[in-house]
């Protein structure tokens, strides 16, 4: 068998195992190990394995992940989700669809801190859905908004998934954060527009509510939110201005978020302990997949599949944009069945060299950044779009009184907005890149 055939066989075997409920991390580890042994023998493989996990984890850049997760856990336990939602609903809640817009606004800020789309969805299902139901929002529409709100944060810095992309594709985290800003805000604006349009056309879905929101409530709400907002500002400002590296920003963010919670007397001992342990659960998932991917990629390198695939596709006389479009379709399909993290770790090592050989008329380092934003955009579509959409599954499992099909129906306009966004970002790379260019 040629090395390439072994590589393809490895991918097929891994997908079969994943389909058979084997944890993604374990299937990468098992198939990667088997493939590695096939090429270099058992004893070389065992030697390779010795210190690999240690040096993989003892990585300064990688420490950004648990640190950001920790920052998010402190923010979550301080009640930030509820506060942000309260603030946004005071600001825009009384307009048509205002409560929905508040959810999107609060999710985009909270999710950026929390770092996990699915966790954001779960949090807001509890923090905002009851309020939406109380104000007679249609439960399916409310659930759809929360599912969408959960993925909007994929692109709002400091998104953890963006950090992971930066690490595996060897891109500059600060530049990626800059690049993600406009597409992220673009997503927020589009979703808010969709809510406005849907709510105006079908007022029964999102009734306007009249509440006496005095200025005292606004100032009270601002008072409870400002420390967390200040922490985000310091974190992002530090990264953008180059004062901090991403790891430093994450460390500073975690410590400051803890201090903010303590000073506001919102973090009790139990919340503190919960945050540490919650960090373990989320980080364990990420580190396990990273370890699996490390071994699988070592195998993949032996097959030379990434280089050969890049050569093959680079040699074809088709437009680079056609290749990009095909890749986007592939990611949307994959996103229907797979979690965003696993999907990226599995595909980037093969797909990235392909992208690098294509000529889009922009410098190579910019292609890496642009591609990352596009991938995260499609990953977001995968998380909410039928027939699966993990975000929809979570919100319906928490909400309990809506069927998945009802939520799918309400989510379609948002998915349409996503496709418009994807088309714009693909056709005009400068939408993503102009901030990066302006700052460098």
């Amino acid at each position, binding site marked *: 068998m040629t090395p390439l055939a072994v590589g393809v066989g490895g991918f097929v075997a891994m997908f079969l195992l994943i*389909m*058979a*409920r*084997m*944890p*993604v*991390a*374990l299937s990468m*580890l*098992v198939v990667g190990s088997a493939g590695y042994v096939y090429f270099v023998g058992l004893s070389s493989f065992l030697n390779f*394995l*010795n*210190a690999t*996990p*240690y040096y993989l*984890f*003892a*990585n*300064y850049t*990688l*420490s950004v992940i*648990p*640190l950001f997760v*920790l920052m998010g856990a402190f923010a979550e336990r301080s009640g930030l989700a509820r506060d942000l939602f309260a603030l946004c609903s005071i600001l825009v809640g009384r307009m048509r669809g205002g409560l929905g817009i508040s959810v999107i606004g609060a999710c985009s800020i909270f999710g950026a801190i929390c770092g996990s789309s*699915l*966790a954001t969805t*779960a*949090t807001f299902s509890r923090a905002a859905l009851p309020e939406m139901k109380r104000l007679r929002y249609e439960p399916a529409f409310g659930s759809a908004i929360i599912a969408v709100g959960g993925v909007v944060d994929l692109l709002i810095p400091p998104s953890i998934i963006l950090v992971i992309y930066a690490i595996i594709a060897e891109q500059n985290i600060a530049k990626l954060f800059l690049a993600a800003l406009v597409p992220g805000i673009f997503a927020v604006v589009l979703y808010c527009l969709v809510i406005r349009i849907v709510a105006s056309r079908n007022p029964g879905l999102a009734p306007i509510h009249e509440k006496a929101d005095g200025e005292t409530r606004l100032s009270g709400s601002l008072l409870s939110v400002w420390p967390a907002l200040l922490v985000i500002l310091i974190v992002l400002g530090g990264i953008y201005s180059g004062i*901090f590296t991403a*790891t*430093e920003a*994450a*460390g*500073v963010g*975690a*410590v400051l978020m*803890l201090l903010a919670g303590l000073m506001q007397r919102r973090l009790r001992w139990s919340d503190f*302990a*919960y*945050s*540490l*342990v*919650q*960090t*373990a*659960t*989320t*980080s*364990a*998932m990420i*580190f*396990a*997949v990273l370890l699996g991917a490390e071994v699988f990629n070592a195998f993949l390198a032996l097959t030379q599949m990434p280089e050969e695939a890049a050569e093959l596709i680079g040699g074809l006389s088709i437009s680079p944009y056609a290749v990009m479009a095909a890749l986007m379709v592939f990611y949307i399909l994959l996103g*229907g*069945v797979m*979690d965003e*993290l*696993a999907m990226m770790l599995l595909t980037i090592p093969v797909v990235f060299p392909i992208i690098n050989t294509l000529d889009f008329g922009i410098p190579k380092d910019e292609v890496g950044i642009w591609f990352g934003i596009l991938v995260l955009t499609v990953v977001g579509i995968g998380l909410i779009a039928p027939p*699966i959409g*993990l975000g929809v599954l979570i919100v319906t499992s928490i909400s309990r009184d809506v069927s998945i099909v009802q939520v799918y129906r309400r989510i379609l306009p948002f998915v349409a907005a996503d496709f418009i966004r994807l088309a714009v970002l693909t056709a005009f790379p400068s939408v993503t890149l102009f901030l990066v260019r302006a700052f460098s």
Partner: protein
Amino acid sequence: MPEWDSANTPPRGGFLDRASHAAAFFGGSLMLAAGMLIVASIATRWFLAASIPGDVELIQAATAVAAFAFLPFGQLNRSNIVVDTFTQPLSERICTAVDAFWDIVYAAAAVILSWRLSVAAVDAIRSHTVSTVIGLPIGWFMLAGVIMLFLLALVCVLTAGRLLRGST
């Protein structure tokens, strides 16, 4: 799919539950300590124009030990990403049995990883391998990883047993 509230439940009575919970808490504390070190290092860099010597090495070691320490608790709460789309038509009993089987495979993988890391740790301790700036003894940090990976293996067996007994 991870259970987002899992960390909120107090550890169950068994030794492995408590050990994993303690390891997770320890790992989280290590990351918080790393965060504090970063803040201290930035402060000294600003005010004294020099960062704390060996800060990067300490953070690296803390991250490695924390990552290993997170794994058993992650497994206890079934935080690993599993794609269950294709097995939905199957009965719950079959899915549970399959999950328990993969837990056992994971246990085997953890034993092998633990064994190989122990070889690396013993090598590093014997050869006095230390980090370059402040001379951290790498082998001892690896040894912590060995223990955590072994704990992971035990937890995998525990979770498999729980699945089969239907008590998860």
